[in-house]
């Protein structure tokens, strides 16, 4: 058979219209009056074409170019500040005694926190069979990767000699030395690198079938070859799907505790020390909740404009927005609970250092930031109790911005106010970030957005194959299903095996 048959074009698609056109997202109908996870009227073809067209279109939207120009310019600030840092040394940061950990670590924790929403959405929501994850998980995973990349920069640069960072891994070096495994900083190295690796794997595995779609839809040979290589020759074989789903599910099961562990370990960076304000056992859950909180805030910050710009209201429906807002509210409450516990136990402990630290937070030199934090993270998000606020895009975006700022302030308060009043009054001091501290932080924002923009331009930002499974026509007619499955089960005499990705996820 000749290989010279014209590739399918969008024109040709019209010749073979889908037989079944859906009348309503089946995962959509909800009893509580919330919209469905996918707008009615979509078919396999329309879902595929719509999502693929975001990246496979020829013309780059002007808006994209404009955003890329702005973000790219900010990225230059990062390049400049890194160059200056390497040329001059870590003295360019404002860190000094007694505040030896400051904005670089604050930014690290902030970014790592943002990097939590992706895996959380992908893995935990998959395990709990939340179908609304499907439209946003790919995007959130990408966000995770870029946020972790931004986060990783800080400890690396903060060491002062980033080219020796490999010393932090155990290998038989000429010093005969090994990493100090009792140190939370080494736990961090393992946690963050494991998290980055597993997130990247998870993301890639999810991408493979969609890369195959892209391969099959690209007309130019260069993207076709590149997507083809990325797709690894994926052809949608039933056997492959079977293992694929198992692997995907297992990865989700593994990522769930992983995502909790990462911020837990970040919290250990502080908590296993004996600095008042850091040495608190509540830190792990409170940090994890904070991370999810920040992650969802960032998801909303990015999704709300993208959804409008690319006209994705069919896929990212109000239901998604509502659910993100609800998760934000829940995690925000846990974080607020953490603030209350810190304050209560500082008082209850009757430990003079704890009490002094808490008093210093509330009424000391940085009290403005403390109360701003309470406002941003504790008070403002309480508006989310209202359904009307959750439905108002502008309000949601504003609250998300408040939370973004608040989470940065939270780390600022934890670090600075615990350090700036040392145990001895002779070691008291103040802290001010330098212009380079801020330049680097702003620069990573540019880096992050540039990556996000490239991702939007080049790859499917919504998981196409999983979106297909949400359509009613994805379902095999019941009599067939029952017959096939029951027969098979009787043959093998086993319990029901792992099912379709969405419908019957296990463990």
């Amino acid at each position, binding site marked *: 058979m000749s290989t010279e048959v014209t590739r399918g074009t969008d024109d040709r698609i019209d010749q073979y219209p889908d037989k079944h056109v859906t009348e309503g997202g089946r995962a959509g109908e909800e009893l509580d009056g919330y919209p469905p996870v996918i707008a009615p009227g979509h078919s396999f073809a329309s879902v595929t074409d719509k999502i693929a067209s975001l990246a496979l279109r020829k013309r780059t939207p002007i808006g994209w170019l404009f955003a890329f120009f702005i973000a790219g310019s900010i990225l230059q600030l990062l390049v400049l500040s890194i160059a200056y840092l390497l040329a001059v040394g870590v003295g360019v940061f404002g860190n000094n005694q007694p505040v030896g950990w400051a904005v670089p670590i604050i930014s690290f924790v902030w970014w790592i926190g943002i990097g939590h929403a992706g895996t959380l959405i992908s893995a935990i929501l998959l395990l709990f069979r939340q179908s609304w994850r499907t439209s946003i998980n790919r995007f959130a995973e990408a966000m995770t990767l870029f946020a972790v990349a931004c986060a990783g920069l800080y400890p690396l640069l903060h060491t002062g000699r980033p080219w020796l960072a490999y010393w932090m891994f155990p290998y038989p070096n*000429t010093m005969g030395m090994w990493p100090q495994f009792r140190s939370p900083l080494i736990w961090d190295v393992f946690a963050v690198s494991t998290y980055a690796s597993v997130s990247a794997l998870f993301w890639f595995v999810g991408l493979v079938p969609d890369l195959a779609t892209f391969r099959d839809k690209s007309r130019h040979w260069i993207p076709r070859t590149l997507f083809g290589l990325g797709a690894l020759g994926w052809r949608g074989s039933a056997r492959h799907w079977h293992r694929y789903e198992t692997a995907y599910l297992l990865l989700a099961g593994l990522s769930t505790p992983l995502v909790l562990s990462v911020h837990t370990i970040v919290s250990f960076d502080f908590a296993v020390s004996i600095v008042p304000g850091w040495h608190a056992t509540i830190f792990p859950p409170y940090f994890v909740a904070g991370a999810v909180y920040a992650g969802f805030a960032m998801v909303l910050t990015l999704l709300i404009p993208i959804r409008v710009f690319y006209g994705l209201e069919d896929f990212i429906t109000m239901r998604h927005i509502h659910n993100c807002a609800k998760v934000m509210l829940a995690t925000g409450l846990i974080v607020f609970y953490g603030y209350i516990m810190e304050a209560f136990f500082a008082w209850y402990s009757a430990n003079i250092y704890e009490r002094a630290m808490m008093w210093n937070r509330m009424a000391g030199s940085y009290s403005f930031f403390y109360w701003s934090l309470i406002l941003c993270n504790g008070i403002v998000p309480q508006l989310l109790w209202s359904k009307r606020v959750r439905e108002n895009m502008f309000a949601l975006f504003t609250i998300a911005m408040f939370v973004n700022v608040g989470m940065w302030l939270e780390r600022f308060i934890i670090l600075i106010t615990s350090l700036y009043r040392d145990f001895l009054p002779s070691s008291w001091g103040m802290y001010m970030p330098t212009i380079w501290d801020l330049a680097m932080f702003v620069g990573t924002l540019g880096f992050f957005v540039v990556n996000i923009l490239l991702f939007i331009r080049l790859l499917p930002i919504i998981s196409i194959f999983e979106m297909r499974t949400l359509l009613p026509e994805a379902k095999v007619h019941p009599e067939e299903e029952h017959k096939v499955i029951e027969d098979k089960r009787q043959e093998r005499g086993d319990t029901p095996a792992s099912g379709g990705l969405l419908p019957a996820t296990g463990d």
Partner: protein
Amino acid sequence: MPQIFHRSTNALSKLSIVVGALLAVGAIFTLLVLDRSNYNTGAFVDVQQPVQFSHKHHNGDIGIDCRYCHTAVEVSSSAGIPPTATCMNCHTQIWADSPYLEPVRESWRTRQPIQWVRVHDLPDFVYFNHSVHVAKGVGCSTCHGNMIQQPLVHQVASLKMEWCLECHRQPELFLRPKDQIYNAEWQPPSNQEEVGLRLKKQYNVMTAEVLTSCSTCHR
């Protein structure tokens, strides 16, 4: 037509993964080997000095004791580099006209020290004390090798930390009686470990725990 790749890409793609993995492992292994190579550590590389001074001749042939020149080795962290005056103790009369020794005589005349090239240069963050080592039964040749066979001096060890630790972890494998410290040709006896343990006790050598503690060498 969806077929994009040639038949051979199947084999190629799998091969490239295997080769890539092997290359990565190989690269790491090579780096580790290179790190320990003499090329990197400078071991066994003869160092040219402004004067062709031969330890083989002075120490081996004539039998001058190490301490004749390195006078501070027993009392100081540094073994001491002899001043030109020490050379001139003999060379006012012996080889007094030799052109080889002109830099020495010039130094003597002008009172400018000879700029010897350092062979054993530990990093600045390492605190090394010669006196404590010779006092606890570590001979010169344990670290510097047999000087009698070195016309030009070179390192005989990597001077890497793992090399230091080798002895600090098990000093008994290297200790010798005190009267053999300056014996360049000393060889460990067959029952070295037994002797070493006795000497370790006799000389009050610290435990491996103390000797490998960070602040023993890094202060």
